């Protein structure tokens, strides 16, 4: 498969042009206030490194889709700027977007067309797509998402998972520098979620930068190298996933038939947030510098019969709780 079109139309555009080498998405003070007065995105400064699988995490209504629509030129920012592949959006949409595949707020298809004809339709809309290679690229994309067998069926007969995969196929009609996937596993069963995650890993392995929004923490933890956390339109934190969760303390859990005594001893050692659940007592892991062996020894000296004693590594959720002081509950 050759794609002279994309190269011809945008020969000098790439992730490494523009103000910041190696940054595929860069926003400065990006803000969107909807006409109703709703401040959906508030002063967003986002930097997505080239080659990353970037998780854009936030509860429903936190402004993820609004941000993605601004990045893709579908809506105009109220203020601030967005650069994608080193070029300003929406001004450079014509040269940037052929290199970007996108899934925005779920798939949208022509129900009366077959899966294959849906892809032909979306490919025809791209003026840089070579019509001579269209058939072949459509078949490749269908293959890639495992829809080759169902390609001749009308899209209205597709299950949600199949529609989602067809939407992904549309994003993969050409070799892309960047894939923007807005909640790609929404509404899928666990099997469907696994398939999408596998595909994302595959694409990332080929060097495509993937920008993936989700309201599911574990999803981001499973596939992303980097993450940004949004809440109520504001960016709370961004960086490599490992660094984010390292910033939060893990949890110390003691299993014992004497939970009341254990809680008292732990409190004496400076534990603050204590949770007792049956025979399990857990708390924030002690500060670095506190020797865990000493804590265990103190428990035993106090006559606490310890059945198990361990520290769980901090998860992204712990990081989130540490940042906001509240749980990552899904509002709305």
């Amino acid at each position, binding site marked *: *498969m*050759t*794609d*002279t*079109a*994309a*190269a*011809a139309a945008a*020969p000098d555009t790439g992730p490494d042009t523009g103000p910041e080498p190696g940054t595929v998405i860069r926003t400065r003070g990006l803000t969107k206030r*909807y*006409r109703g007065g709703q401040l959906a995105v508030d002063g967003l400064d986002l930097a997505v490194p080239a080659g990353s699988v970037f998780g854009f995490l936030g509860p429903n209504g936190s402004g993820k889709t609004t941000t993605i*629509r601004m990045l*893709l*030129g*579908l*809506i*105009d920012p109220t203020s601030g700027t967005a650069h994608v592949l080193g070029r300003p959006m929406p001004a450079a*949409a*014509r040269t940037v*977007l*052929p290199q*970007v595949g*996108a899934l*925005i*707020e*779920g*798939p*949208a*298809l*022509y129900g*009366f*067309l077959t899966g294959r004809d849906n892809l*032909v*339709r*979306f*490919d*025809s*809309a*791209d*003026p*840089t*797509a*070579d*019509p001579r290679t269209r058939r072949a690229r459509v078949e490749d994309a269908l293959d890639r998402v495992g829809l080759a067998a169902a390609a001749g069926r009308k899209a209205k007969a597709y299950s949600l998972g199949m529609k989602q995969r067809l*939407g992904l196929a*549309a994003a993969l009609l050409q*070799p892309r520098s960047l894939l923007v996937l807005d909640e790609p596993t929404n509404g899928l069963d666990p099997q469907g979620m696994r398939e999408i995650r596998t595909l994302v890993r595959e694409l990332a392995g080929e060097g495509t930068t993937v920008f993936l929004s989700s309201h599911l923490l574990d999803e981001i933890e499973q596939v992303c190298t980097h993450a940004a956390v949004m809440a109520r339109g504001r960016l709370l934190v961004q960086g490599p996933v490992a660094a984010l969760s390292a910033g939060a303390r893990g949890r110390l859990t003691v299993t014992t038939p004497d939970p009341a005594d254990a809680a008292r001893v732990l409190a004496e050692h400076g534990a603050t947030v204590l949770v007792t659940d049956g025979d399990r007592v857990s708390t924030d892991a002690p500060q670095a510098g506190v020797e865990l062996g000493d804590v265990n020894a103190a428990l035993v000296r106090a006559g606490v019969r310890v059945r198990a004693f361990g520290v769980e590594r901090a998860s992204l959720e712990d990081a989130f709780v540490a940042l906001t002081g509240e749980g990552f509950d899904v509002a709305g």
Partner: protein
Amino acid sequence: MSQAELTAVPVSRAPRRALWSLGILRSELATTFRRWRTLSLLGVLAAVPVLIGIAVRIETGDGARGGPGGGGGPAFLSQVTNNGLFLVFAALSATLPVFLPMAVGVIAGDSVAGEASGGTLRYLLVAPAGRTRLLLAKYASVLVFCLVATLVVAASALAAGALLFPVGDVTTISGTRIGFGEGLVRAGLIAVAVAVSLTGFAALGLFVSTLTDSGIAAMAATVGVLITVQILDAMPQLDAVHPYLFPHYWMSFTDLLRDPVYGDEVARNLGLQALYAAVFGSAAWARFTTKDITV
């Protein structure tokens, strides 16, 4: 694939560009004419002349009592029994005030709003179709629909007329006679004039379509505007504004059946349609290119 591989093939850009601009138009046409809704509208339009023909045939029974000035109903109806070709003119006269523009209103009103309500608009735009390019393709495909719809009426009328009635030389409105061949040419001209009559309203429908994200609302509003304007055009109190209403010169196509052809009102109709197309086309463009796509 490597970047070297990509750029190695020399590209002759100009002809390809043109070809690819047509790609979206082809895709628009295919999408429009594969819709069940489009086909059923065309089906209804094809049925109208057949029904008119059958009604005339039944009414006149065996005694052909046609002739100029015989009875009411659409223009030319009375002449159909003498010459089947007149069914073309009668059917176009009957469908132009309501059926044809209503069909155009449905297609034009749905053109952008339907993609918005289906969510496919956002995927076309990130493809990236380009807002101006997409709007032009949409308008072009609505114009093609205007022509196809008119030709469907004319062709169905011609077939029904030839089957149900005798055909032959044509008596023009001026009273002269022209041969059947020339009559056919006039019928073709008239069909084109009728199709062009719909272009202003098509632009209006396109504009309405950019105002809302609901295909149904856009279709209803467009057809509502049509009916309102038709009523206004029939109110004698509003004489002063009539020359600016898009349907005002629609019936001017009958002038093409005079001998010699009388072109004043036909030209005025063309000018008015061009004005509507320019005004509402620009309005649609201004709206669509600045609109937040939130669906």
